[in-house]
Each structure stands twice: as structure tokens, then as C-alpha cells.
């Protein structure tokens, strides 16, 4: 198992490089470059060329990328066009806020959707089940920036119970966390329900009941642990949604996080800041996805066994390789 974790961590490196290169490459397609921003207005075409030379902007893309990454590893992502501050510092300053918000919304959505999904599955076909499924579908269909505005309107502006923005203590976390969490909660509730319904029909639950296991334990222990496997997959895929939701929600609630940093920088064409913040975020996200992937192994012994025998790599990777070499 430890060897597997280690191996996956090593395999993460090409993914991180791939992801960061992809982002770097696409952003490089943007018209204009640093010289357009940095050069004085009266600079001649020659002056600009010389500046490009000095800044190394006319080197091939891959070289510039490698250069960027080697600086990044040392904590240097250049300076913001706008503030002149190091990008690294701005990112590190905002990152904890987004992490906190993301974590809070994860807690909200998982905490509410698992019980709700199980409840629905157990009352499959009743009006209670139908109502929660309609609610889940609504949650899935509501644009979260709009939900954020509605919540703000009601709880901050009309009722005055909660602050309408900023990051000032627990109270200010509540509305943004619910806003982001709703979409994921809707998806997770649906997944939990269908996955429980799937598991509920399995023979091994009948075996458990025949053993005299009480219905409560059958559901919470025997069924849930099996149902968790697809649920974890969905949590993994939804984490991207949380991040995306953070971009919007931070803008709605003036939450000083990375999402708002990215949007503000995009609007002010602050390329080093955009590049740095997005590359850092996507790389961090890849690490989180790996962690989710590892979580599987702890829930499903079949996957753990696969890892143990194949010594890393997804099983079909190896199969592919065998096929390719044959």
C-alpha cells in the first residue's frame, strides 16, 4: 500500500507538468505580451523587440515554460502588472480563504446529502422521496451565483442576520458555503440515493439480514460502505465544481480568495497573476484528485488488492501496456 501511494505520488509529476503546460500553452495564445504592458507608450518597435529579447519572450514556448516552472518551484511566479507585488505572495495570501470556503462547502454538502440520500432510498417511491428528489433537481438547476444573490438578499439585506460579504469570522462563511455546497449537495444526494438503491438489492444484504443483523446496522454498515464507492467517485468529480463555484461565489460575496483574485486579474488583464494563480490552483487540484483516488483503496478492498498485485497504475494501464507490447 505504501509503495503504491509512493508510486502514485511519483506518477503525479507528469500530470502536474501536463496540467501546468496546458494552462501555460493556452494562456500564451492570448494576444499581446508583457512588453505591451511594460513598455512606455512612446517605445519604438525596436525598443519593444529589445525588451522582448531581454525578458526572454522570444524564446520557444517550451523553454519559457520550463523556465517559468523552475522559478515557480522556487516560489517565484513573477510580479503582478497591476500592483507590482510578487504573484506568489498574493496567491499564498488568498489561498487559505479559498481552502476554508471549499472545505466548509464540502462539509455542508456531504453532511447533508448523505443522510438525505439514504433517507430517500429507504423511502423509495414515497412522496417524501419524490419531494427530496425534486429539491435535488432544483438544487442542480439553480445557478449558484444567483442562489448566492438570493441568499444575500434575504439573510443579509432584508433580515440582516448574516453579513453580506467579506471574510470576517464564522458568520461570513455561512452564506458562501451554502451557495457553493448546494450544487454538490444536489448531485451527491442523487448519487447517494441511486447507489443505495443499487446496493439495497444486493444479495449480501439479505445474508446480513438472515444473520439477524438489525435493519439499522444493515443500512449504516453493510449497505453504506458499499454505496460509498460510487459516492466517493462523485465527490472527486464534484470538487472541480466546488472550485468553479468558488470563483463565482467569491465574486458575489466579496470573499478574498483565489477565485476572486483570478477573475479580478482577468478583468484587468494581469497576465502573470492569472497564469500563476491558475497554474497553482490546477496543480493543487490534481493533488486533491489523487488523494480522492487513494481514498478508494481504503473503502474497497478489491481496489486495494488490484494495487497490491499490479504494483501501481490503474489496472487497464497495465493491460494496455501488455497489449501494446504484444
Amino acid at each position: 500500500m505504501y509503495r503504491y501511494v509512493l508510486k502514485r505520488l511519483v506518477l503525479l509529476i507528469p500530470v502536474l507538468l501536463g496540467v501546468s503546460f496546458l494552462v501555460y500553452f493556452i494562456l500564451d495564445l492570448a494576444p499581446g505580451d508583457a512588453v505591451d504592458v511594460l513598455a512606455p507608450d512612446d517605445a519604438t518597435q525596436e525598443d519593444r523587440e529589445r525588451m522582448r529579447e531581454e525578458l526572454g519572450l522570444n524564446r520557444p514556448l517550451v523553454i519559457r515554460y520550463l523556465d517559468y516552472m523552475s522559478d515557480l518551484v522556487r516560489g517565484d511566479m513573477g510580479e503582478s502588472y497591476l500592483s507590482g507585488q510578487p504573484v506568489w505572495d498574493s496567491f499564498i495570501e488568498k489561498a487559505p480563504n479559498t481552502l476554508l470556503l471549499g472545505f466548509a462547502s464540502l462539509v455542508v454538502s456531504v453532511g447533508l446529502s448523505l443522510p438525505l440520500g439514504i433517507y430517500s432510498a429507504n423511502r423509495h417511491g414515497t412522496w417524501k422521496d419524490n419531494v427530496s428528489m425534486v429539491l435535488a433537481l432544483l438544487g442542480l438547476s439553480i445557478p449558484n451565483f444567483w442562489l448566492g444573490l438570493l441568499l444575500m438578499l434575504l439573510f443579509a439585506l432584508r433580515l440582516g442576520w448574516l453579513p453580506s460579504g467579506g471574510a470576517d469570522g464564522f458568520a461570513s462563511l455561512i452564506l458562501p458555503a451554502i451557495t457553493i455546497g448546494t450544487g454538490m449537495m444536489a448531485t451527491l444526494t442523487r448519487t447517494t440515493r441511486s447507489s443505495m438503491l443499487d446496493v439495497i438489492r444486493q444479495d449480501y444484504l439479505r445474508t446480513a439480514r438472515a444473520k439477524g443483523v438489525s435493519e439499522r446496522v444493515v443500512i449504516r454498515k453493510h449497505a453504506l460502505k458499499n454505496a460509498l464507492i460510487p459516492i466517493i467517485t462523485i465527490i472527486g468529480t464534484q470538487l472541480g465544481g466546488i472550485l468553479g463555484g468558488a470563483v463565482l461565489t467569491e465574486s458575489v460575496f466579496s470573499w478574498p480568495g483565489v477565485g476572486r483574485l483570478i477573475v479580478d486579474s482577468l478583468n484587468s488583464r494581469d497576465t502573470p497573476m492569472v497564469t500563476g494563480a491558475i497554474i497553482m490552483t490546477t496543480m493543487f487540484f490534481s493533488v486533491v484528485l489523487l488523494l480522492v483516488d487513494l481514498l478508494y483503496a481504503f473503502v474497497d478492498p478489491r481496489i486495494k488488492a488490484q494495487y497490491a498485485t499490479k504494483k501501481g497504475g490503474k489496472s487497464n494501464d497495465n493491460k494496455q501496456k501488455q497489449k501494446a507490447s504484444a
Partner: protein
Amino acid sequence: MNGVNDDIVLQVEDLTVYYELEEETVKAVNHISFSLKRGETIGLVGETGAGKTTTALALLRLVPDPPGVIKSGKITVCGNDMLSLPVQKLESIRGKDISMIFQDPMTSLNPVFKVVDQIAESLEIHEKLSKTEAHEKALDMLETVGISRSRGGEYPHQFSGGMKQRVGIAIALACSPQLLIADEPTTALDVTIQAQVLDLIKDLKDKNGTSVIMITHDLGIVAEICDQVAVMYAGHIVEHGSLDEVFNHTLHPYTEGLFNSLPNINDRKSELKPIPGLMPDPTNLPEGCAFAPRCEYATEACKTTQPELRTVGGTHKVACLRYDETDFHINRGKKHG
């Protein structure tokens, strides 16, 4: 049959189970009755879909509901009226007094728990053992069914089908139940493994004096371990008696058909005589005898009148209208004289 008899482990009276689906009702089990004494083994024989498994699940009150509904009947297991027990009491009987080995070992074990824990669970529940004691005893059970103790920490997917079925047996027998239901315990297994598993059940039954309901469509298994036999067809018991009565003095045409579809090892030139046709749709059973459409002896009356199960001598019962005629006998009966 009447009065409480300490020796009677199981009594089923007039059990009827339907599956009520949206558009149709599957009449899975219809008015069946039988009883079982301590240490005795009954074989429930019939084709797939005859209602055997539903009967077994009803005994544990585990018929999936919805859509399954126990329409009528009384089930008494070790003096407990299973159908009126509160759920908690029911849970204390399941796995303790009555337990079940399931047909498909591949899907009957929980894939995410260690094998030993799955056996230990019922010990923890019923014998009130501590975790470590239950664990120890579970490993003992594993050894009893012929699996090395060292493999207890493994997961079901690491076991072969035969081994999984052994685990299933270990789970079922962990608390030494008085009544064991074995639902086609060997159907999903290789022939060589079948014999081993059967021997195992037989040994354990003899050692503990367990009563067994052996559900099977394999008459060979019945001949080997059963004391009484109930032949089921389309949710009805059509013939019921001791092993000798049913096997050597067969009365029902369907039972005869079952025997005729068996290859005869002593006479390899003899032709197999399969029963023509298929079992009727259980959502739409014929008005008369359910077997009539496939029966070579059927008369017009058979198509309109449901035969009652009647005693014809000793413990032997048959549900066939033709026995109203005093001189009626089936071919097999003739041969045996």
C-alpha cells in the same frame, strides 16, 4: 400435526406469498403446508420458478417487501410465530435458531468486509461474545468448513466460488441453528466442489442434530440426504411424503416427469423423456391444475378444477384429480408395482 410438539422445529401452515407488481401479481407460493422434526431433513424439489426460494425467504420473513406480500399462513419456528413477531425478536431468531445458506455464493458475501468479520458478526449479535472471542470462534468455524485460519483476514474476492460457499455455510452454522435452510447450495459450484459442500452440510447436520430444508432441483442430492420430500410446481406442493414414498411409490405425474428427465446410468440406451412445455406464467396460472397443460394424463376436469393435496396412505400426499379414480396409476407406479 396439531398441538405443540417439542420435537417439531418448523411448522408451515397454508403459506401463500404473492409478489404484487404494478401491473400483475406473481402467485409465487400457494397454500403450502409442511412440518419438520428435530434432526430431520426435507427436500423441496422443483424447477426454477416453482416458489422454493420464496418459501425459504418467507420462513425467515425476508421476502423482499415490496413487492413481496405474505398473503396468508402461519409459520412456527421453534415455537415462535414468525409472522407476528416484533422485528426485534425476529432479528434475535434469524441467524440463531434459523439460518440460511444462499444459492449464489458469489453475490452473497459482502465484498467490503473481511471474511472472518462476516462470520463473527452473528456470533457477536447472538452469543453476546466480545469482538476478540467472536473473532476466535469465527476462525474456528472457518477451520470447520475446511478453510485455513490464516485466510480469515482476506476479502471475499480473494476466494474461489467453492470457498465462498464454505464461508456462507460457516456464517449460517456459526450459532448452531436448529433449522438450516440450504437454498440450492451447490448449484453455482463445480461438480467436484458440489460433493464436498454437500458432505460438509451432512456432517454438520449429523453432528449438531440440525433440521435442514434442502432446496434443490437435483434429485440425486435429495436421495442422498433427505428424509422427506416435497415436490413443488408453480407455487403448489404437488406431492409430499417420505423419501421412500416419493421416490419408490411416485404418484404425481410431475414427479414422474422429473424422474424421467434424469439420465439413467444403468441403462444408457434408454431415451430421456423431458417434460414437454414450460412452467405456466405465475402471473396467470391456469384455472385448474397448474400442471395440466403439460400432463399426459390430464382430462378435461383437470383443466377446470384445482386438485387438493390429499393423503393417500402413511404420510404420502398428492395433489392430482385422477386419483379420484380408484384404478388410476401412472406408468412409473406400474413399473414399481
